């Protein structure tokens, strides 16, 4: 009789411990994650196409760049972090433009005058387009600037960088993609 009661108590205790463990595991999984960083559902999928007017040149259509690696950088003249990454993007463009890589700057929530002035004063060399309706930004699930998407040769988004990009990391990724080709 006493053994039966002990066995029942053990089972009850095991059940309570399991329930508490499940709840703690759920809470811990949430605590370990930065709530301000959201995974983009677009990584691994086809990059949304766009045709946008260039600040100083003909319109740019993403679909026409199929077969190239495309680095799409959303930026604004009022964004200080965008100024930080400017050199890295320019360096990437100069280093890889003859290797089938295009860097495109997409101006986000800015005035055209401010954007043109920024491009002129910082001597941006890669193509810069304006997204006045933010339609492209919305299609890419943009949450702020700077954000950068890396699109492989088959038109799939392979990476999304929130915040400033670093030239070395970007070069490493591009070199790896150039070696392996579109996958």
């Amino acid at each position, binding site marked *: 009789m006493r053994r039966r009661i002990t066995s029942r108590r053990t089972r009850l205790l095991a059940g309570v411990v399991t*329930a508490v463990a499940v*709840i703690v595991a*759920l809470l811990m*999984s*949430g605590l370990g994650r930065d709530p301000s960083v*959201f*995974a*983009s*559902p*677009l990584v691994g999928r086809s990059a*949304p196409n766009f045709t946008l007017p260039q600040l100083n040149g003909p319109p740019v259509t993403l679909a026409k760049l199929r077969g190239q690696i495309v680095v799409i950088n959303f930026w604004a003249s009022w964004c200080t972090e965008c100024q930080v990454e400017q050199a890295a993007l320019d360096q990437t463009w100069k280093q890889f433009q003859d290797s089938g890589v295009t860097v495109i700057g997409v101006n986000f*929530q800015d005035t055209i005058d401010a954007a043109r002035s920024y491009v002129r004063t910082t001597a941006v060399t890669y193509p810069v387009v304006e997204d006045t*309706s*933010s*339609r492209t*930004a*919305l*299609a*890419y*699930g*943009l*949450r*702020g600037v700077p954000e950068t998407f890396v699109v492989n040769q088959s038109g799939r988004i392979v990476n999304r960088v929130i915040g400033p990009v670093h030239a070395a990391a970007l070069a490493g990724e591009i070199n790896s993609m150039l070696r392996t080709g579109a996958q």
Partner: protein
Amino acid sequence: MNAAGTLRRARAGLPGLLVLIALAVALAALVIVAVSGHPPASQAQQVQQIAAGLHCPICKDLSVADSPAPLAQQMRQEIAQKLRAGESAGQIRAGFVAAYGDSVLMSPPRQGVAGAVYYLPLLVLAAGLITAFTLLRRWLRTPQPDPPEADSPRLSQAERRAVAKAVARLREEEPG
């Protein structure tokens, strides 16, 4: 004779006809009330409804409908444009989810961890109720010990005899 018969038949069918007319009038009234009671939402209202269900991606805790942020304004414009293009509310929501993920929805779908958050309290409540019911039923079924009978204390024969003697003695001692 023929005219009288026709008249009689007409009179006999009149109540049924009246019932039919009354039913038709009632049905028409119901349709009118249903239609006028819920006028089709205007496009602005539809935009507001869809925007209220979407989380402003650059805000802390505001919906696209409530946020004054430029991106939220552009999302509202995008919703209006898609409605004009003939997209349904579901298609528009799905478009934003495709770009932003489930986090763009004010009420995330009840799947995965989010589903656990919804259903775990219900499961705990159900388990508690079942436990309480089981314990209560067990408690009610446990045989309770009979209360001791007042008129028949369990005394031995010797004790009964002693008690009888004591009672008899008391009675003898009573005056009168």
